């Protein structure tokens, strides 16, 4: 049988127009449009593009949920066996749209999806867990390579064939861990790896460390005497009794506490909720982790404008990076809304 495939592209690759047409609403055309021709050819008769969905990049960006819903419904209506978006190369809005629609179709319909993006396209980082993202060049010059790779990866998913590792297959790592059997036990493999490392030979880790974001440093504070400073900590300092039950490890939440009029964190009024270090010293004097007493002095002396009346706290002990990131984004939003100029973050 010939598998049925629906293809998503933007207004530019559909030949409708560039930026001036980026606000067009999604439309559906029977058969192939633009890069769909190459896609069809790459399927070599095993699959066929039965419909193409075209949407303006700006329209998509402004209506992500509704458009994703529309795409999933359309794919369902065409009884598709698989779904392809792009390639989006290094186009930020288009790449994000490709990742979003593939993820939505996969989640809602449970059928195989694939897109192709330049690894630095923000859509790749955002949606690599939701779909296969084939590594593509940064511009449409890479079309000839990306399209057959997408076609192959989609067909093999539809046919239920095993998909190899990201390195073997040329897609972006999805963060999926798979159990494997080895002839040698872990200790031997670790020693082998160490010897290779000592010899300066190439070796491959079996468990990659997470890659953290890098942020461009913020400009310096020009006028500290009028700056509003906030305190944030991962050291778990909370009002005595830990009213929001922040967990001693693997924290699921952060706390926001009012320190209006608090000049010093006293024993019996503040404590730590952190379960990853000896709590004795922080419970005796929580200023050892969250320096409220000193900042109050600096406020009085006019070295800083003011101390923000709320402090934020969580426990950084086995806390999932995803949770930490979520807390950070939310705390950042609140600090920004409160007009805070700078933050002193203390960590244990």
């Amino acid at each position, binding site marked *: 049988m010939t598998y049925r495939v629906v293809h998503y592209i933007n207004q530019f690759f559909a030949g409708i127009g560039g930026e001036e047409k980026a606000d067009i609403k999604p439309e559906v055309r029977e058969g192939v449009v633009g890069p769909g021709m190459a896609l069809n050819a790459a399927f070599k008769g095993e699959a066929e593009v039965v419909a193409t969905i075209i949407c303006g990049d700006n329209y998509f960006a402004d209506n992500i949920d509704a458009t994703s819903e529309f795409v999933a419904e359309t794919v369902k209506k065409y009884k598709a066996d698989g779904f392809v978006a792009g390639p989006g190369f290094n186009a930020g809005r288009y790449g994000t749209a490709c990742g979003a629609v593939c993820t939505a179709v996969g989640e809602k319909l449970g059928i195989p999806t694939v897109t192709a993006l330049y690894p630095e396209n923000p859509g790749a980082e955002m949606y690599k867990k939701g779909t296969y993202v084939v590594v593509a060049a940064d511009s449409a010059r890479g079309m000839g390579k990306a399209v057959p790779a997408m076609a192959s990866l989609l067909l093999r998913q539809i046919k239920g064939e095993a998909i190899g590792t990201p390195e073997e297959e040329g897609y972006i790592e999805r963060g999926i861990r798979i159990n494997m059997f080895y002839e040698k036990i872990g200790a031997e493999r670790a020693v082998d790896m160490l010897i290779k490392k000592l010899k300066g030979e190439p070796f491959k880790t079996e468990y990659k460390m997470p890659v*953290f*974001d*890098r*942020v461009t*440093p*913020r*400009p*310096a*504070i*020009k006028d*500290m005497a009028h*700056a509003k*400073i906030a305190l944030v900590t991962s*050291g778990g300092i909370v009002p005595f009794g830990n009213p929001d039950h922040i967990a001693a490890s693997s924290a699921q939440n952060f706390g926001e506490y009012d320190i209006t009029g608090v000049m010093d964190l006293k024993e019996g009024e503040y404590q730590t909720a952190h379960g990853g*270090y*000896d*709590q*004795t*010293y*922080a419970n*005796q*004097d929580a*200023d*050892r*982790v*969250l*320096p409220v*007493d*000193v*900042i109050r*002095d*600096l406020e009085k002396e006019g*070295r*800083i404008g003011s101390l923000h009346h709320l402090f934020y706290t969580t426990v950084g002990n086995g806390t999932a990076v995803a949770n930490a990131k979520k807390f950070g984004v939310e705390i950042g939003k609140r600090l920004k809304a409160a007009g805070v100029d*700078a933050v*002193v*973050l*203390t*960590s*244990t």
Partner: protein
Amino acid sequence: MATIVPISLSVGANRIIPTVAIPHPLGNPLMTPEEEKKLRRHLVDKALVALETEVTEQTVFKDE
């Protein structure tokens, strides 16, 4: 402000002040309360200076 500077570097902090110890980054229970507060003041002063300093990359502000 953290004691394990390599962690601060790995998570991407841009202005880093090394501190005293994990369970008491901004204090030292072996000192008198007055000495201890002086130490804390010194560290927080450094943090403010760091915030007033332009940096283009991750920077560890060490004691001179």
